[in-house]
């Protein structure tokens, strides 16, 4: 027993996560809230998380080289616009290429402004966002004015789509030309506690995966490899940490920053293209809905690491998926939050942190009462689930993070000894 308690003490965060997951599973067993763990939900999670993931990976490159990039949103917008336009005219993979290109150009602009002209990083990022919005609007009018389905605020439907695949045997994919069973779906349909939920998770992630999704996800290990196993990655990381020292060792600081920022534009452009090609099929104004900023937030509490961004974007994707697919399950989340807060308050009060414990307890009751008195969460609130999640996570995570030391600071060549 004491071993168990020691384990909890030493691994506070892990225990907390397991606790939340456990109760999530329990609540998911209730019929109304079953959508919390279905493969449909997880498939949607992946589709919604990937744009944030991609933009977040780009954000890592920029920030690790020392440049704050608030303009991820604008670069993503360019990705959506160019992606839709090229996909409509030439097909989905052209859309992908065009989206990357559109984002890259704007990344380059940001690099020129911040690195060569030493404009404040945040001011430049804000300017990029404004320019991107204006450009998208203007280009739409020019390109779609005479199209029946398009106009100033949206594009016509793209032609074609990117094909997808499923894992054979586990998710019903083809194997050597033959149809196979969908083991995970079968397990999911059995409604067994834990087994069906896990099957839902795995099934959602492996069934009908588009090749673009696959590419996007494989970028995670690729980025990890580039950043930690190549000389380029090492130098990029050192430039964002101590540019003066890096320069004295012969590293071309300006070049590294340019590459980092331009890459962030390319990644965000890809994110935008993905959003259009996989999710909506058209470009629509304001489609990005703040995802660029959420991506930046995920960089921060992902501690500037690809795995962290992967988890952060997964969390947002999940929140987003629930709010889109099943209002009832969002209601179930209220119960989950209430239970978690209750446990948290017991823990805090036990550790003599009475003020925080009392606040936690009050909030637990508040959420509990809200849960009991309603059958659904109003969809205006559901809509900003990702944003409030961002805020809450950042508030609690900011203390324990380690950002690149020189991020945001202007660098002039030769400033070093």
């Amino acid at each position, binding site marked *: 027993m004491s071993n168990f308690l020691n384990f909890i003490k030493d691994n506070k965060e892990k225990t907390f996560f397991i606790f939340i997951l456990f109760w999530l599973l329990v609540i998911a067993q209730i019929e109304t809230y079953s959508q919390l763990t279905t493969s449909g939900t997880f498939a949607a999670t992946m589709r919604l998380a990937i744009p944030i993931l991609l933009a977040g990976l780009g954000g890592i490159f920029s920030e690790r080289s020392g440049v704050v990039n608030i303009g991820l949103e604008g670069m993503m917008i360019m990705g959506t616009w160019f992606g839709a336009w090229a996909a409509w005219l030439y097909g989905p993979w052209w859309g992908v290429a065009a989206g990357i290109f559109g984002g890259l150009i704007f990344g380059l602009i940001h690099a020129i402004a911040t690195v060569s002209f030493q404009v404040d990083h945040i001011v430049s990022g804000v*300017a990029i966002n404004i320019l991107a919005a204006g450009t998208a609007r203007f280009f739409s009018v020019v390109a779609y004015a005479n199209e029946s389905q398009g106009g100033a605020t949206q594009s016509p439907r793209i032609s074609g789509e990117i094909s997808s695949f499923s894992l054979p045997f586990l998710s019903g994919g083809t194997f050597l030309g033959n149809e196979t069973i969908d083991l995970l779906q079968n397990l999911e349909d059995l409604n067994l506690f834990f087994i069906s939920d896990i099957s839902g998770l795995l099934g959602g992630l492996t069934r009908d995966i588009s090749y673009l999704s696959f590419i996007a996800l494989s970028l995670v290990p690729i980025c990890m490899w580039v950043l930690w196993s190549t000389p380029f990655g090492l130098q990029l990381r050192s430039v964002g940490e101590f540019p003066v020292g890096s320069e004295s060792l012969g590293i071309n600081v300006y070049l590294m920053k340019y590459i980092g920022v331009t890459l962030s534009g390319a990644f965000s452009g890809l994110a935008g293209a993905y959003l259009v090609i996989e999710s909506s099929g058209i470009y629509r104004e304001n489609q990005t809905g703040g995802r660029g900023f959420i991506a930046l937030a995920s960089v921060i509490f992902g501690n500037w690491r690809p795995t962290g961004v992967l988890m952060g974007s997964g969390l947002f994707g999940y929140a987003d998926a629930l709010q889109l697919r099943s209002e009832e399950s969002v209601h179930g989340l209220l119960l989950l939050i209430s239970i978690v807060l209750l446990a948290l308050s017991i823990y805090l009060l036990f550790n003599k942190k009475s003020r925080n414990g009392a606040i936690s307890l009050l909030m637990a009751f508040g959420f509990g009462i809200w849960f009991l008195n309603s059958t659904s969460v109003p969809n205006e609130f559901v809509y900003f689930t990702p944003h409030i999640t961002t*805020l809450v996570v950042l508030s609690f995570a900011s203390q324990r993070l380690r950002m690149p030391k020189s991020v945001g600071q202007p660098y002039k060549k030769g400033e070093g000894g």
Partner: protein
Amino acid sequence: MKIYLKILSFFTPVIALAISFGLTTFILIMIDRDPVETFTLMFDYGTTGKSIVSILNRSIPLYISAVAVAVGFKMGMFNIGVEGQYILGALIAAQVGAVLILPRPLHVLTIFIVAAVVSGIWAGISGYLKVKKGVHEVISTIMLNYIGAGIVAYLLANVFFEKDENNSLKVPQTNYLLESGQLPPLNNILGIEDLPNLNSFIVGAVFVGIFYYWLVWKTSLGFDLRATGLNPVAAKFSGADPNKLIVLAMLISGGIAGLVGMSNLVGYFHRYTIDFPTGLGFAGITVALLGRNHPVGMALGALLISFLERSSQILDLNNIPKEIERIMQGIVILVVVVSYEVVRRYILTQEVKLASRMVDKDE
């Protein structure tokens, strides 16, 4: 000799605008439109009497929004959340105003105060999160924009709505403000009849500008704010408390942001509907950057942006996409921030050279 530097600094916006016009011309040529024709049309339309009134009306909220952003900028803080702050302020103020019965000056004033307080508190959340939890205000204010918009949408649909005559249909808008809660157009007060109505809140905008000037350049609090923005270390050594200042700056910025919606609320629509103008928060950032956080500069900037928005409306009728104005705004802002930075650094180096030359001469 110092005069030439002052002139350079003064004319930088002009230079930046010229460059932007050049780039826009280039784009127009690319889409096969005559730039001369475009600009002439815009100018002619924009300078008609009706247009001038419209431009003045539009610039009121833009200017106030810019001032709100500028208060933050002066301290090195980025309040990107004016958008969420002002709509929350306007909605709550509209509802409070709709249920009150007071003599006009008091009624209108109460509406203003409610808007400023609500908006200020919303901004204050970001300030608090920054000081206590280290959350960067750019992200928190942006997130609060979306959350604020969601709250407004919810309140409008479920709490603050107007029932129609049969008491059955819910129209998402607040009740109409009584006469006492309305601000009549300036024309009525001044007795002008043949021009469209000029919003009386232009007086309010002027007051906001004066308040901003007084606060930032004339008070000791403003001194602390500016010092912290220019040299946080020296400011700390001189006794300024950075944490207190962060929260204060956000509260004040938010409070001013609350007034952004007032010209539309009490001077025009007299109620808050789902069609209440949005986007003024972001436009304010453009104007603040364009005007370099200067009270008069921002006024000119607001007028310029409003002019562009108004004058471009004529373009559609002549087969020129009026959205050219949108991309023009984007180009202007980018060229402007780069030019300002380049010129700023140049002026500083010149000042040092000039002063040392002058001192050497004396010796």
